[in-house]
């Protein structure tokens, strides 16, 4: 869709094409009062398509159920070694996962949940990916040249080595990397999961992972990776951009509250910026 997204460098000075459509209530002052009081312009933009929102919240429910039921299944044999052999690469062989992190009650129950939820998640992922493709939003997530440099820029900013929040478009390069990695890791989880579900009927797939034991290991490690990505994502939402929750629920995003506008680092400048404070002269409203 948007041509700005197709430019080699998505370091956008302007908001994305979606964001350029102002809402009917855009630029409405959020509070009316004398200039000396907190005075902020809201810039509402439609940011998150309903397909993304719906699939996102289905994930929020289904993923924890999938992970926790998987951990309950894992606890029936909390290790990887084939009987009579040892396994090189798991330091906690034989130690069960704390029951509080598991779901399903018992092995059969957890299996029923796991093998039901897998369809929910796979269909959900397909809907999301097909939407990304048809709607062109994949361009906002696909890796591009310079991403590593821009990601490093973000890290420097978070470490106070850079003063101003880099402007990197709808998602900064750290976000982009995380959001791109999630479906990739998820695909790995699905494939290794099928490999341990059908090690005989789909023997070739199991062999791609190096056999049943390794496929089970890949399934586990990739799950850990996805959980870490999710935890990082949730942490950053609350620590840097809690206002994005609104757009993930209603679709509308107030750009005057964006991390760029607030110059926000984790737990730093969480509150809306006071324009009248004057020490940073850059206007909070980004639509120019």
């Amino acid at each position, binding site marked *: 869709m948007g041509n700005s997204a197709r430019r080699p460098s998505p370091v956008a000075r302007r908001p994305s094409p979606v964001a350029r459509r102002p809402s009917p209530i855009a630029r409405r002052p959020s509070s009316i009062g004398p200039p000396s009081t907190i005075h902020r312009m809201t810039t509402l933009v439609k940011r998150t398509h309903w397909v993304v929102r719906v699939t996102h919240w289905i994930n929020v429910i289904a993923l924890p159920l999938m992970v926790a039921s998987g951990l309950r*299944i*894992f606890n*029936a*044999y909390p*290790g990887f*070694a*084939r*009987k*009579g*052999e040892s396994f090189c690469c798991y330091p906690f062989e034989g130690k069960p996962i704390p029951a509080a992190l598991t*779901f399903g*009650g*018992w*092995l*059969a*129950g957890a*299996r*029923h*949940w796991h*093998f*039901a939820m897998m*369809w929910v998640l796979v269909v959900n992922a397909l809907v999301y990916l097909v939407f990304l493709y048809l709607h062109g939003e994949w361009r906002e997530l696909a890796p591009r040249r310079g991403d590593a440099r821009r990601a490093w820029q973000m890290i420097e900013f978070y470490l106070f080595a850079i003063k101003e929040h880099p402007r990197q478009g709808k998602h900064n390069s750290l976000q982009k990397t995380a959001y791109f990695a999630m479906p990739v890791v998820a695909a790995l989880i699905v494939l290794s999961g099928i490999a341990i579900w*059908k*090690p*005989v*009927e*789909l*023997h070739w797939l199991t062999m791609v992972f190096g056999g*049943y*034991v390794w496929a*089970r290991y890949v399934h586990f490690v990739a799950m850990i990776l996805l959980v870490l990505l999710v935890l990082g994502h949730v942490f950053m939402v609350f620590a840097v951009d809690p206002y994005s929750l609104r757009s993930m629920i209603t679709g509308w995003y107030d750009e005057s509250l964006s991390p760029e506008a607030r110059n926000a680092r984790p737990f730093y400048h969480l509150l809306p910026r006071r324009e009248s404070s004057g020490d940073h002269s850059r206007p909070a409203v980004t639509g120019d």
Partner: protein
Amino acid sequence: MSPRFVDEQSLIDRRRFLALTATGAAAALVGCDSFGSRRFEPALAAAQRGNEKVERLLFRHRSEDRIPAGARLSGNAFPQYFVSDTVPIWDEAMRGLWRLEVSGAVRQPLSLSLDDLVRMKRVAQSVDHFCVEGWTARAQWIGVRVSELARAAGVTSDAQYVDFQSFDSDYHESWDMASAMHPQTLVAYAMDGRYLGAGHGAPARVHSPVKLGYKNTKYLTKVVFMPLRNGGYWTDRGYEWYAGT
């Protein structure tokens, strides 16, 4: 690792499996699962039926389990497991000579002694054993294909399912005909070159890599071909019936 240690290990696995299963079954019975599982039971059951359809669709007689030539077998580490309180042993003094009965939807019911079985067309295969718990073990099995027994007994077109029954309390598991007729589904009487030990289902057991371990009835007494499925020991306790690999 000494064999003794390994045996204890597998015993612990089995104990924990049984204990947890019992707890879970109790929880399911009173419907006090942490997430109110009763309400979700219809949806989960529907998913299970759907999964069975997918599994049957994927099933091929040509898909076989292969382990690398010269791969290490599990040997003494192969877990021993039964549902009775003590190792089930066929007591000849009380029950007479052990015989395997092949009956049901067949033209010619069979009653085979171990010698009869050994004289039948023999298959030896080294394959994986996939336990529902997530572990795998490898062994070499010698036995007679269930399809060979079906042929010998003259199975009729009524036979859609097979029930494998045992003398390990009331343990049994019924299979779909296609999986039972798979070339790797055996009534095995030897493991790793020796006749089955008491902990492994002596004198004969079902072994196949195409189903999860619990479908592979040990301490086998009857192979009954039938037009309807007949559940099974773990199936009746909530585990999935098809359980294909």
